[in-house]
């Protein structure tokens, strides 16, 4: 174990080739000014050409029936290419919520259209109270009705259906549950939010007395939220290490070509050692991300530990890579026309979504303790 199989390597290769052909940086720069922010045609190609709309979704729901490892390979490549699309929000997060919590009927209703790209779904997690710790959600559903504003919702303005996370009743310790808000409700209002990362669109959705449908049974276990966040963190961590790797490669290439004082700056220890340290940090983060994906794929009960490790290591490696890449590029790295800042901004948005490293480190020790206690 722990080496990718030949099939997995082929999957990586085909996704990379597809994104090289269909998701150039030039195209991405055009999309940054686009109100939609992604290319419907290349997104649809993921389904039609590559068949990765539902990598980890069972075949009965229209997916490819592969494991979380394959999903994470796809995400790593998308992170590397900084591919702007609702794939993470719809095909991963929303699909996960359905897979983990939904009833058989709900899965049958929604997963096939998500897997085919027909519907875009997104999960609304953030609100005023949980900026730092995503679990500090206060808003609630009462009598199947929800009123409130969710923020930092990925791809809010293009989604066809929302999965709202809210407490099941007004008691502040009521369990967190997921609720479907059907499209087309007149009391649902979406607006884009300005973000430093224009390759990952966010928005607000405001709901007023909107009837929502609970995902899963009322009696289902109350750990669904934690599980969802862990799965999401692992997915994001894999996307992140792909981006970090791109930054390192582009920095090394630049340093090999950039001459100052009569020699390439890649011959200077300050630059060489920075890159060596970065390689180490990124490879460690990759191991964390891969291991966590594997733990989920293998239903390893220790996966929450691996999820904390993966997100924390990816946060630190990606931000370090982003800062170092700009530094290695020097002044040119701070300009708009150079591509480095696009990955820098993605690193920043990834770092804060689903918890900074401090949150995950604190959680890791709790979880290690819990594991030992069991």
């Amino acid at each position, binding site marked *: 174990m722990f080496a990718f199989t030949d099939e997995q390597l082929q999957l990586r290769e085909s996704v990379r080739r597809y994104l090289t052909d269909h998701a150039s940086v030039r195209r991405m720069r055009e999309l940054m000014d686009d109100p939609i922010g992604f290319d419907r045609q290349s997104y649809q190609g993921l389904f039609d050409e590559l068949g990765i709309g539902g990598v980890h979704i069972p075949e009965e729901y229209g997916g490819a029936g592969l494991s979380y490892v394959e999903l994470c390979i796809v995400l790593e490549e998308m992170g590397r290419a900084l591919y702007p699309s609702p794939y993470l929000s719809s095909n991963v997060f929303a699909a996960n919520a359905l897979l983990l919590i939904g009833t058989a009927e709900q899965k049958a209703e929604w997963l096939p259209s998500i897997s085919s790209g027909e519907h875009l779904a997104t999960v609304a997690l953030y609100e005023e109270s949980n*900026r730092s710790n995503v679990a500090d959600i206060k808003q609630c559903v009462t009598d199947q009705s929800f009123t409130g504003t969710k923020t930092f919702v990925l791809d809010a303005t293009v989604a066809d259906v929302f999965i709202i996370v809210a407490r099941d009743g007004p008691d502040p310790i009521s369990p967190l549950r997921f609720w479907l808000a059907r499209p087309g409700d007149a009391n649902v209002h979406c607006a884009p939010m300005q973000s430093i990362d224009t390759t990952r669109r966010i928005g607000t959705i405001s709901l007023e007395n909107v009837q929502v449908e609970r995902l899963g049974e009322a009696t289902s276990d109350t750990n669904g939220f934690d599980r969802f966040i862990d799965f999401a963190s692992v997915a994001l961590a894999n996307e992140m290490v792909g981006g970090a790797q791109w930054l390192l490669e582009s920095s090394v290439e630049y340093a090999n070509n950039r*001459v100052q004082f009569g020699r390439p700056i890649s011959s*200077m220890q300050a630059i060489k050692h920075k890159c060596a340290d970065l390689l180490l940090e990124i490879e460690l983060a990759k191991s964390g991300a891969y291991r966590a994906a594997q733990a989920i794929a293998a239903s390893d009960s220790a996966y929450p530990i691996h999820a904390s490790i993966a997100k924390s290591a990816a946060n630190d490696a990606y931000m370090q890579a982003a800062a170092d890449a700009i530094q290695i590029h020097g002044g040119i790295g701070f300009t708009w026309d150079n591509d480095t800042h696009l990955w820098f901004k993605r690193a920043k948005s990834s770092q804060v979504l689903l918890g900074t490293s401090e949150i995950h480190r604190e959680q890791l020790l709790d979880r290690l303790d819990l594991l030992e206690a069991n």
Partner: protein
Amino acid sequence: MEWTETLVRNEVRSFLETNWDAYKDLLEWRNKLIDAGWGMPSWPERWYGRNMPQSLQSVVAEEFARVGAVSVARTGIRLLAAETLLAHGNDAQRERYLRKILTGEETWCQLFSEPGSGSDLAGSTTRAELVGDDWIINGQKVWTTSAHHADFGLLLARHDWDVPKHQGLSYFILNFHQEGVEVHPLKQMNGHASFNQVFFNNAKIPRSDQIGASGDGWQIAMTTLMHERRNAGNIFVEARRRGDFNGPIYEQEAEENKILLEPYTWYPQRAGRVDLVLPRAKATGAINNPAARQEIAKLMIMSRCAEWTALRARAAQQQGQPQGPEGSLGKLAGSNIARQAAKVHTLISGVDAIASGEDGPESGIIAEILLSVPAISIAGGTDEIQRNIISERVLGMQKEPRMDTGPFKDVRKN
């Protein structure tokens, strides 16, 4: 004449009593100041000054501040141009340029950095060829602040490719008002465009606008850079509030400053805005998070110790003690502080950190900090160059082997 503090104070005070009037026209007032030698009192008497020691300058400034008197134009890099002309220009050049620098009628910029020579300024490849009585300039400069409204530029360019790199450079005054010069704004990752690229396509410089002799370029540029380092921070000198005073002259001055300071509005964000940390930590409740507290405290400790280090350097200098290492460390300390501040702001804000513009905390200032901090360890000499300088000049460590000592045409370049 031997200046003393009392003498200076009395003279300035009497000059201001007689002449200062906030209802005068700014240009008229400045010309009077220039003629009287109170605009740049440390300059030679022949060139609008009073030959006064630097140490008494603060007395003059105090008296100006007391009555709210406006001084000569000082913002931006115009004084670097003036100091360079005073040190290396000829009298005709001083005659032509100095007064209008001080009146503010003509603005200047610095044309040193190039796309291919960022850290390595002396590796300039902008070409200067003497054709008849004109130098013909071809090439490109970059990181030029204020080029879009500059009248003149201090230009470093290469006239000789057969000698080692530092020896083949010359120094010119370039007039922006001509066809061969194009200025393009350079947009940064934080959305601002504080800098410009300047392209020369057979731009012309009359021989009379060369400063010093051919080959003196590097040495003269060192003078400019020395003044730049000395004035670091002074760039904002005139931006201070004049809340207690009124008069139309202040509006004229404010208008001048507004144009000049526009490119610098994000500089406080670049430095990390340590001032915002505690208030925001309290407002968000992050002050109660022990992990955040550790990082905030680290920042506070670095920031306070850096302030005290700067004070220590200044105090030692004022007491005439030999310069210690403290003085050369500020830039590197500033980078570390800014980086830690960005980390702390992220930690405090959580997901809010990425919301920008009006959607973001502090009306987008937090987002602007996160997107501006990367510049501080690059602009004005990267951290790596700073560490080279500190280790060689302060600690006396050895230089690296040089690969660029032969004739410049044979040196490997971009």
